[in-house]
């Protein structure tokens, strides 16, 4: 058993303190990082509830329940931000990525507390793949809502659609790393490869002056 609330307090207090002394977009970034950590903690409660409710094993929960709960929970702070604060187009992707970073960081810390930090190679692979997965989902939601699905009804269908896309993406990753051998290797590799391709795209698209109508 790990004391997830204690870990959260320990990680969130420095962030909360720094928010008092910074402003502008950095403050929003930090706030969303904290929100990501809070959401990660709350997701653990929701996952445990459904796991108990359906009486399933940890493996089944990881593959079928966790992706749904985590992605829905991650979307809620962003929806609140969009609907209440109506941020500028460029602010939403940053908030979504910050939320994903906070979530992935807290998840990794909990993983380290539970499993120890002896195997650097494994932790490097896990950190890279799980981090890349959450950041990819954040990028998909953030950029999708900002640049592709902007109009009112389109924003509704787009948000729910992007949520479904993130759920299946996350679930496929969890499914692959639950397998053995080649499946697990593929699971660890594919978010990292995708984020590499996305980064290459980020560098190349402005060079070719590609913007979407």
């Amino acid at each position, binding site marked *: 058993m790990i004391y997830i609330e204690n870990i959260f307090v320990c990680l969130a207090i420095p962030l909360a303190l720094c928010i008092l002394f910074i402003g502008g977009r950095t403050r929003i970034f930090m706030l969303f990082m904290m929100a990501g950590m809070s959401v990660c903690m709350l997701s653990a409660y929701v996952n445990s509830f459904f796991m108990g409710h359906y009486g399933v094993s940890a493996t*089944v929960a990881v593959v079928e*329940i966790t992706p*749904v709960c985590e992605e829905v929970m991650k979307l809620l702070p962003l929806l609140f931000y969009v609907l209440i604060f109506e941020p500028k187009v460029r602010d939403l992707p940053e908030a979504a990525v910050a939320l994903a970073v906070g979530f992935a960081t807290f998840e990794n810390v909990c993983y380290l507390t539970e499993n120890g930090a002896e195997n650097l190679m494994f932790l490097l692979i896990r950190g890279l793949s799980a981090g890349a997965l959450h950041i990819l989902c954040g990028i998909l939601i953030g950029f999708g809502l900002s640049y592709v699905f902007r109009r009112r009804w389109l924003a509704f269908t*787009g948000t729910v659609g992007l*949520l479904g*896309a993130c759920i299946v993406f996350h679930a496929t990753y969890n499914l692959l790393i639950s*397998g053995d051998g080649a*499946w697990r290797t593929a699971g660890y590799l594919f978010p990292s490869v995708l984020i590499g391709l996305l980064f290459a795209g980020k560098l190349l*698209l402005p060079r070719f002056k*590609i913007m979407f109508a």
Partner: protein
Amino acid sequence: MNFELIDNCFQVAVLFFAALAAIAAALRHKDRRFLILALFFACVSMGTLYWVLHLFIFGNVPQVFYVSEFSWLAAYLFLLSFQMVRTDRAGPLFSLLALFCALLTAAAVLAFRMFGPSYFVSAAFAGVMSAIVYLAVWRLRRRGGGGLIDCWLLLCVGLQLLLYVVSGFMQDYTRFNLYFAVDITLTLSFAALLPLALREVAGK
């Protein structure tokens, strides 16, 4: 190897390449309609991939939350978004015939409890499918409006409904049968949306 796996692998491969082609078209034409189509192809493909991987890795199909069906529902939401982006409201959006067709679609989905057993998911699927049908028929009825792509979307919706109806009468999924014939046709119909969209963009 049973035919269900062959059919699913075929769907994953065809729609994965369709998604890549749609991304290439989006970059070439700088048009977000192709990005939405790419998301549609990717979601159908990923939903099927999850299903196949679950079969491969665990030897059974998902039992608690139907992640694949979330993905397929998301895919149809992207298809609806695609229709919404194509629809510029030059006139009133009401059409009695379109409403009739949409209600008929919703009734068919609810009658066969497609995407069930959850009523909520089935109702959501009915709403999305009927909205796609409504916009397609509305565009076809409008003077100088819809084109081949709207007829094709109606065909895709019809095939998807037929697939669920046929699955209710099939017991054996190890050999080729009517279910797989409909599924393969549906996959190819989905993929054909891309050249039709390219044709539409080139025509403007």
